[in-house]
């Protein structure tokens, strides 16, 4: 919402502050000011001059020499313009002054353009005469300006006067961010009312009186019927005869221009002016096109089409509200009028409409019809029905003032009765209790009165003006009081009671531990999107019937690439690794802690299972076992190492078939790890080996423990035995270790693989493995015989696995 300061001052005449003060004060009282732009910020030393004499330039065909009277003296100016004649009054920039832009109307330079006296083709020139573009504006806003050349003032303009003042450019345009609850502030009057309340100044709304000079009565000329009162609650119509289309007066043009509305003619300008001033959109129909002297407001039919006044054919449906006459549709309610009833220069009688439509319906209709206008933008906020009559009367008042036509007596108003004004108890104690303040009731009453919220002492109630539809209960009144009392004056305290212990959940603790361990293992944390492309499944070589393909689809995604909720977390980390690989970053280790979304059924009828995944990935230094190490560091940190096993038959199509494993805890799969399949690497354009691990965190949270129970440090010496073996290649280390542990008994304290070797000196199909076993008795020094017995059992076990001892 834009407004010039001068327009606001029209209703708050005592307002006297700098632009910055105004900006700050309005923002602090709740009318947030985004920016402001002084229209004259680059206009300096510009006066009204009269051209006394025009002579040709001796050395240049396209230049002329002018003698210009600037009130105090007459100066010589050389110009290339040719649209002026002797006696014309023009804006003149004096030596050392500034203008906003060039005469071509291009982008305005920051800081403007400085003008200095000088010589043009050898002839001294003491300044410059300006076009409207040089003054920073355009013909759109100053339609009386010539297409090319100098701006020429009306003959009655005073010579020597401040030209910027005459043009109304000593003004500042403020841009306000109006919140959706303050529909009333989408109007200059609303902003002015807030201004007056902020500065404790009188607010002077326009006094609306309509001189009804024409014969007859509107009620005899037009009847209005609302068929769909759910979509239109109020419709006001007035008739104006003897329309004379002409430019509107300068003051109106200037005000419209200041808020970015192009002046067109008196009739259009009046409706736009009232829309800005009152926040009530209006429409004008050519009365001669209205059949049957009748307006009917009703829904369109599915499949209807209608040509709006911009010449476009629009598709309608049964939820689009239409304005119709006795025979046909003449406008889309609240959005745009029809071509068939539009005003032309030959119009004689006009029907003004000011109505109140259902906001959400207008919003949805505008979307479906594909036409969002200034009017629909206002209507969709839900307007005050009481405002329509004021606005239409104000428009008629301006018609008379501007000599635009003669108003026919009478207003046709139909619709639901305007609701009586709301009353809310003024609960001063509760307000103070809510705010933590000690504001007297009298002060509250005074504050509210500034906003036209009156107090009825008899009933101890406040009376809410109709334009404040947002005020409904005590907390709303409290905000009004707080705003003008000053948020900054409310004390700052901390909650007094509220004894709570706070903290994070066990789940979050486990996740935090996982992040810490991942970082400790050299992985940096990434964040990737939760939605991705369905092509991900193909990139990961998942078969058509893979359960991961059962993913939730977003019905209105940003695009196919963001259309499904991930059911597998790998794509994010692989994409991030690919980004790093592509940028030639070496040895990259990344992890992510994020949800996957597993639907319980599709289409989705209940919330999906959101499962937190710890996803690790790296390329560069390291191998499968480095990844395995990271996994075990984490599981060790939550005391889950004891029941941890690996199953090489993980069956993951996106992993190397010989280098993958499920991570199994106590017989339950809690994740997987492996080397990424080279075909998948190709799909991500990574030309090196990539290792990943995914751990399903809910499974970990279920078993994780943070408490450690201390076991005494051994007092008695350990006995170590080394086992050097030749093992068939297909026998897994995990199986050997399992067997050794089972057979080693309680005294076997630890075993450690210290060598593994394949190749020369080892027969084909076998590998050499060497373990160091450590035995210990916590109670006494071990006897050799006990160790020998345990070793014998183990050796027997080796035989069963076809393992030979190395000689």
């Amino acid at each position: 919402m834009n407004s010039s300061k001068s327009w606001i001052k029209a209703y708050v005449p005592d307002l006297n502050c700098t632009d910055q003060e105004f900006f700050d004060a309005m923002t602090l009282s709740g009318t947030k000011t985004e920016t402001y732009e002084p229209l004259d910020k680059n206009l300096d030393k510009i006066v009204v001059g009269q051209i006394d004499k025009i002579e040709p330039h001796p050395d240049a065909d396209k230049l002329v020499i002018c003698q210009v009277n600037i009130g105090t003296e007459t100066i010589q100016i050389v110009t290339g313009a040719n649209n002026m004649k002797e006696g014309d009054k023009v804006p003149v920039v004096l030596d050392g002054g500034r203008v906003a832009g060039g005469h071509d109307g291009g982008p305005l330079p920051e800081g403007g353009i400085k003008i200095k006296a000088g010589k043009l083709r050898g002839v001294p020139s003491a300044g410059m005469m300006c076009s409207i573009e040089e003054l920073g504006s355009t013909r759109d806003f100053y339609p009386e300006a010539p297409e090319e050349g100098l701006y020429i003032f009306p003959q009655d303009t005073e010579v020597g006067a401040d030209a910027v003042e005459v043009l109304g450019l000593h003004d500042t345009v403020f841009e306000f961010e109006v919140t959706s609850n303050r529909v009333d502030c989408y109007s200059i009057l609303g902003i002015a009312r807030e201004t007056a309340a902020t500065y404790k100044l009188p607010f002077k709304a326009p006094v609306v009186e309509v001189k009804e000079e024409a014969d007859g009565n509107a009620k005899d000329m037009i009847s209005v019927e609302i068929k769909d009162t759910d979509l239109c609650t109020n419709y006001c119509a007035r008739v104006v005869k003897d329309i004379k289309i002409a430019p509107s007066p300068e003051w109106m043009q200037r005000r419209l221009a200041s808020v970015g509305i192009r002046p067109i003619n008196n009739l259009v300008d009046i409706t736009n002016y009232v829309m800005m001033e009152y926040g009530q959109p209006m429409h004008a129909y050519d009365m001669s096109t209205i059949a049957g002297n009748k307006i009917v407001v009703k829904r369109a039919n599915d499949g209807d089409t209608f040509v709006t006044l911009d010449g476009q054919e629009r598709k309608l449906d049964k939820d689009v509200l239409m304005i119709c006459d006795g025979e046909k549709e003449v406008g889309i309610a609240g959005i745009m009028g029809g071509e068939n009833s539009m005003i032309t220069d030959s119009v004689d009688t006009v029907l003004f409409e000011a109505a109140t439509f259902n906001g959400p319906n207008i919003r949805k209709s505008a979307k479906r019809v594909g036409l969002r206008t200034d009017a629909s933008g206002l209507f969709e906020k839900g307007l005050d029905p009481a405002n329509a009559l004021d606005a239409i009367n104000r428009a008629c008042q301006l018609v008379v003032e501007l000599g635009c036509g003669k108003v026919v007596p009478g207003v046709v108003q139909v619709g639901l009765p305007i609701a009586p004004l709301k009353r809310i108890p003024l609960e001063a104690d509760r307000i103070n209790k809510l705010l933590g303040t000690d504001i007297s009731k009298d002060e509250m009453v005074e504050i509210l009165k500034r906003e036209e919220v009156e107090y009825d002492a008899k009933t101890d109630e406040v009376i809410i003006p109709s334009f404040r539809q947002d005020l409904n209960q005590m907390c709303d009144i409290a905000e009004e009081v707080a705003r003008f009392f000053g948020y900054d004056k409310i004390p700052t305290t901390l909650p007094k009671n509220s004894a709570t212990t706070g903290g994070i959940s066990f789940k979050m603790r486990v996740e935090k531990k996982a992040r810490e361990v991942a970082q400790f293992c050299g992985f940096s944390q990434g964040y990737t999107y939760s939605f991705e492309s369905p092509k991900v499944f193909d990139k990961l070589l998942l078969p058509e019937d893979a359960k991961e393909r059962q993913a939730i689809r977003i019905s209105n995604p940003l695009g196919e690439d963001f259309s499904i909720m991930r059911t597998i977390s790998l794509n994010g980390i692989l994409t991030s690794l690919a980004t790093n690989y592509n940028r030639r970053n070496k040895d990259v280790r990344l992890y992510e802690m994020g949800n996957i979304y597993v639907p319980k059924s599709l289409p989705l009828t209940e919330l999906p299972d959101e499962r937190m995944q710890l996803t690790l990935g790296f390329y560069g230094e390291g191998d499968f076992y480095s990844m395995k190490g990271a996994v075990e560091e984490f599981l060790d940190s939550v005391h889950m190492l004891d029941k941890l096993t690996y199953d090489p038959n993980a069956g993951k199509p996106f992993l190397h078939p010989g280098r993958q494993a499920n991570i199994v805890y106590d017989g339950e799969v809690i994740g997987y790890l492996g080397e990424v399949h080279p075909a998948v690497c190709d799909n991500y354009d990574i030309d090196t080996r990539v290792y990943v691990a995914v751990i399903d965190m809910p499974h970990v949270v279920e078993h994780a423990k943070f408490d450690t129970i201390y076991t005494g440090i051994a007092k008695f010496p350990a006995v170590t035995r080394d086992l050097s073996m030749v093992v068939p290649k297909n026998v897994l280390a995990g199986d050997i270790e399992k067997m050794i542990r089972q057979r080693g008994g309680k005294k076997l304290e630890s075993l450690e693989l210290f060598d593994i070797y394949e190749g020369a000196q080892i027969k084909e199909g076998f590998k050499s493995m060497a373990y160091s076993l450590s035995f210990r008795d916590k109670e006494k020094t071990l006897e050799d015989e006990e160790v020998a017995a345990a070793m014998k059992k183990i050796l027997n076990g080796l035989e069963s696995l076809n393992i030979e001892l190395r000689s």
Partner: protein
Amino acid sequence: MISEQLDKIREEALKQIESSDGLEKLNEIRVNVLGKKGELTSILKSMKDVAPEDRPKVGQLVNETREAIEKVLEETKSKMEAAARDAKLKAEVIDVTLPAKKNKVGHRHPNTVALEEVERIFTGMGYEVVEGPEVEKDYYNFEALNIPADHPAKDEQDTFYITGDLLLRTQTSSTQVHEMEKGRIPIKMIAPGRVFRADEVDATHSPSFHQVEGLVIDKDITFADLKGTLAEFAKQLFGPDTKTKFRPHHFPFTEPSAEMDVSCFKCGGKGCRFCKGEGWIEILGCGMVHPHVLEMSGIDPNEYVGFAFGVGLERIALLKYEIDDMRLLYENDIRFLNQF
């Protein structure tokens, strides 16, 4: 006779010790003089030739000699060892300015750094950190927060829908409702999490980002408490000199509502490029929980009041760490992450 011999041995030994050039030589002397076959031992062995009444005296003399030699031997050895260590240390001088051998430790994402800061501050004030679902029911994301079906805010937020009733939450405020429905009061919680809005990706927008919601419900909670709590939060997050400014604003689920600005932590409020010359930076939205919101979640608004606030995590991360493009947060370039 023996005493002369002993004096000679001692004299000779001390001479040799003095002229010895290392620990090895010293040991040789020890063996030659004091060892099993050493000179002193051989004198002891010849004791059988000494008259029995003289033996104790001779024995004493031998021991005195031994002790005297041993003492000097020990002293010389200590000196030599110290000299040897000094020489070794001198030889071991290194260039301490050569590059460090670092452990390759990973780094937190700036979002997490910011989140952990926020969590630290609020858990310290007794807040519980809770979570809610990211795929959410319309009711929790909108209706229960005073945003009914026809409310314009529903359009403004550009929601991703899955079905008519299920959507990707647009705000962590939905977690407020879950928490209130549990019916355990007082509530003091923050709810961090991922939210989604249909914004195209650019330097300042992302269709997926993070918020931290805060909610306090109890008897006698005031707007002043809200101000005090958030002012404290700002001081802890941005530094003890941080000032806060509360501006009236509008949110459907709070009334009165406010936006909080903090004094620019780069320039201290004087105005700089960072705060666009304003001296203030907008940080969060907040307000007193709307009575209708309390009521819908089964809390009696006549008995209980509360305040709520919501802050964008990325916004804090971008501001605090001067990151100029939001896309960096989701690319996961290691050169970016390693800085946090």
